């Protein structure tokens, strides 16, 4: 994707220190990620979901009935909006949120213990399956939680809360020596 180097990440101030070697439990902060809210029109929810789900590089995160955050690691923000509008073909409204959300990727053997300190959702592998996603509270902060791999979860948070959530996650992971860095 085309990178806009005038675009500042919400955690630029927080995450400036030189990256330590990543521990087993590690927090990656997604730097270049495009995201959009998709709001399906009445009666179009299933059709919209299917057309987006058919594209492998687009990841659907459930936000509510007929509403998703769609994440792409490939597209630029404007490209993602165009792509989604084409895919939905008038069946949904698309709102760019690439600058309004920050993605945290938490991975490691203790990830569920860490998440349990803030999130009141059962994330046992049998209950929260791969590809599952949900809007939840992490402490006092609203996030979208998704399981993107065996022991990997992504938390998407409104930008204004990003520093607070980062502090919270690092504290939740302190017992496990959680490390953090930008993903690229």
């Amino acid at each position, binding site marked *: 994707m085309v990178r806009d180097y005038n675009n500042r990440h919400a955690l630029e101030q927080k995450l400036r220190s030189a990256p330590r070697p990543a521990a087993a439990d590690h927090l990656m902060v997604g730097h270049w990620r495009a995201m959009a809210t998709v709001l399906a029109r009445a009666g179009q929810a299933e059709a919209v979901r299917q057309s987006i789900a058919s594209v492998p590089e687009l990841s659907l995160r459930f*936000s*509510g*009935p007929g*509403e998703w955050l769609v994440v792409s690691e490939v597209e630029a923000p404007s490209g993602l909006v165009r792509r989604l509008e084409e895919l939905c073909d008038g069946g949904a409204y698309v709102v760019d949120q690439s600058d309004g959300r920050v993605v945290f990727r938490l991975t490691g053997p203790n990830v569920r213990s860490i998440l349990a300190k803030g999130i*009141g*959702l*059962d994330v046992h592998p049998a209950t929260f399956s791969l590809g599952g996603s*949900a*809007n*939840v*509270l992490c402490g006092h902060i*609203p996030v979208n939680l998704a399981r993107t791999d065996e022991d990997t979860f992504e938390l998407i948070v409104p930008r204004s809360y990003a520093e607070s959530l980062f502090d919270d996650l690092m504290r939740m992971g302190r017992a496990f020596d959680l490390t953090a860095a930008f993903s690229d």
Partner: protein
Amino acid sequence: MASLITCPHCGVRPKEEFAVRGDASRGRPEPMDSDETWHDYVYVRVNPRGRTFEHWHHVAGCRRFLVVERDTATHEVYSVVDAAEFARRVER
């Protein structure tokens, strides 16, 4: 109060994710309904002991208003439905 609410869209969730708005049993009056009807709608609440229908907003989840049918004495929850679904049901 319940500790957990089973949201029809999100599953079992802690009560901290919700905000309770109050009585869901009466619909909004028509514009030309009587002063008394409007006064009752805006100001009068029954506060029952026993079964009640309430609007619970899933603020930190799907952001849908739900109608929670619960018992104010035992805190047992009997049903949870989406408010739009509930409103359409009442209309019929």
